[in-house]
């Protein structure tokens, strides 16, 4: 249903463009795209609210599972897509081919949503490509900007390699179990002959590598800062908050659930990757001069936090809900941060931290948006980021009974959060306590809307997080417990 709405509109937009025989009219296409996204999101939310969605059908035999896990990710990613579209109101004003731009955003959104819903490796792969290929184009959409093009080429090369590795991994999994159905793969992996286990491990490693490229896990993260910095900022929001989360959706379905059947120490491997990821991300973020590059590294760091949940998933019931919660929260937080960067780029043509001095006076609403999102990212108590981190670290400590290494994850996470608070605080200090003496700038209305919504979201769920935690708990598949 969601696919139908978004896909039809996504294909229709360029056709309308050709039929209307004109360029410009950015608002027109943006409005159509926004309408489609709004319809899709309201459909998903109403389904969830009415309770017609099954709890978690990870192990069902259907090709596409209509379950809460998918719906949860779908909501997160559709919110991001809405952010991107709205912030593009301002960004695309003077640029060309708006119809294609919005149609690619819609197509990518379809891909992300279907990655979340996919319950079969074939559908997963095709949806993954549908999510990736439009974003390669979007990243290079500024054809006259060398950095946009460079970002796109880097992103494309690593993305193409990632999808090739995923096909290879799928081929191994298929060969070992004789089916592409995820449930069948899980069953097959559990009943694997001992001599085949090395191949199964190879498949798992390739899956982790393939998804890891998209998620920005540490050995596979080198493209990420360049791509995030070079791409047009609304697209960066989509990349950081959207496709990255889709990577986690795929990882939850395939790696965690599928490989849970392999009774080996994959969890420890994931934990090591998690610690490396968050440390590298946060340490590198300290040294950045550009706000978007800093946020890129910080999102590497957050990928590490989310990975904690995946790593301890077999040992703790709250681990996966924690991951899901942090996925949703991080989508909103990072989304609004990048949208605020869109604001500074359109108004001040920079995202450089030194040039943001006095932003609190020049663009007060944008500055509030950045501040609140940064605080939430750092996990300061009354905001939503605090709760998801709390759940995650709690799960890690909780898992200590079964896995002695798990509490160290929580400690690493807390240390990293403290580090991140330091450099976030530095940005906030630049914005509010230093003065550049510039005049107040008019802020784009679309960005004000996004900031208002998401600040509301972060504060509201920071004060009263129960519904979200409930939703995450019901969305997480429960069949995973040993």
């Amino acid at each position, binding site marked *: 249903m969601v696919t139908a709405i978004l896909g039809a509109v996504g294909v229709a937009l360029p056709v309308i463009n050709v039929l209307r025989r004109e360029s410009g009219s950015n608002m027109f296409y943006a409005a159509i795209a926004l309408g489609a996204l709004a319809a899709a999101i309201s459909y998903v939310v109403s389904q969830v609210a009415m309770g017609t969605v099954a709890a978690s059908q990870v192990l069902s035999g259907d090709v596409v599972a209509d379950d809460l896990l998918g719906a949860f990710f779908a909501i997160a990613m559709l919110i991001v897509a809405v952010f991107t579209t709205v912030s593009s109101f301002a960004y695309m004003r003077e640029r060309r081919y708006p119809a294609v731009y919005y149609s690619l955003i819609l197509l990518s959104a379809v891909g992300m949503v279907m990655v979340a819903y996919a319950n079969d490796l*074939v559908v997963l792969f*095709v949806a993954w490509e549908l999510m990736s290929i439009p974003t390669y184009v979007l990243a290079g959409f500024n*054809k006259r900007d060398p950095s946009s093009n460079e970002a796109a080429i880097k992103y*494309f090369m690593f993305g193409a390699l990632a999808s090739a590795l995923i*096909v290879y991994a799928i081929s191994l999994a298929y*060969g070992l179990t004789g089916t592409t159905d995820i449930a069948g793969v899980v069953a097959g992996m559990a009943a694997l002959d001992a001599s085949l286990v090395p191949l199964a491990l190879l498949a798992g490693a390739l899956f982790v590598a393939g998804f890891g490229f998209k998620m920005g896990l540490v050995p596979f993260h080198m493209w990420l800062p360049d791509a995030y910095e070079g791409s047009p900022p609304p697209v960066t929001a989509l990349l950081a908050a959207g496709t990255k989360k889709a990577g986690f959706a795929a990882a939850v379905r395939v790696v965690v659930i599928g490989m849970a059947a392999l009774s080996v120490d994959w969890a420890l491997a994931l934990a090591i990757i998690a610690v490396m990821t968050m440390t590298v991300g946060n340490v590198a973020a300290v040294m950045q001069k550009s706000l978007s590059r800093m946020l890129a590294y910080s999102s590497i760091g957050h990928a590490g936090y989310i990975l904690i949940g995946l790593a301890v998933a077999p040992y703790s019931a709250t681990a996966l809900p924690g991951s899901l919660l942090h996925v949703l929260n991080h989508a909103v937080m990072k989304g609004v941060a990048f949208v605020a960067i869109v604001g500074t780029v359109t108004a001040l043509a920079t995202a450089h931290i030194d040039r943001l001095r006095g932003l609190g006076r020049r663009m007060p609403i944008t500055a509030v948006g950045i501040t609140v999102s940064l605080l939430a990212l750092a996990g300061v108590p009354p905001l939503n980021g605090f709760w998801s981190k709390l759940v995650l670290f709690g799960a890690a400590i909780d898992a200590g009974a079964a896995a002695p290494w798990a509490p160290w994850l929580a400690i690493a996470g807390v240390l990293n959060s403290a580090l991140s608070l330091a450099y976030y605080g530095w940005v906030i200090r630049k914005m509010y306590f230093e003065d550049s003496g510039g005049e107040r700038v008019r802020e784009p209305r679309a960005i004000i809307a996004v900031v208002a919504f998401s600040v509301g979201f972060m504060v509201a769920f920071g004060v009263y997080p129960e519904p979200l935690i409930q939703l995450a708990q019901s969305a997480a598949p429960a069949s995973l417990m040993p």
Partner: protein
Amino acid sequence: MTNELVDFTLVSVALLCVGIYGLAVKRNALRMLFAVEIVINAANLNLVAFARFVPDSGGQTLALFSIAVAAAEVAVGLALIIVAYRMYRDIDVAKFGTLRG
């Protein structure tokens, strides 16, 4: 069928390694694209080989999808490379250096 499954898998593994070598060493954008194609083909070979020995049609279906996806990917990649070539008059990735940090 006189051939064993493991023969096909070995060829596929060899192609995978060649492709990854190409991606790691080459700095020419087109050659990196070649390398990606080689990796995808290695995976397709694996899929069809497994599908033949199971036997089942799922692997062939996925191979067909993957071939079509590769076509789409190459179209986008070549378009990006053409844009880069217009900008730098070069196709060497090492020379596209504007992002550092």
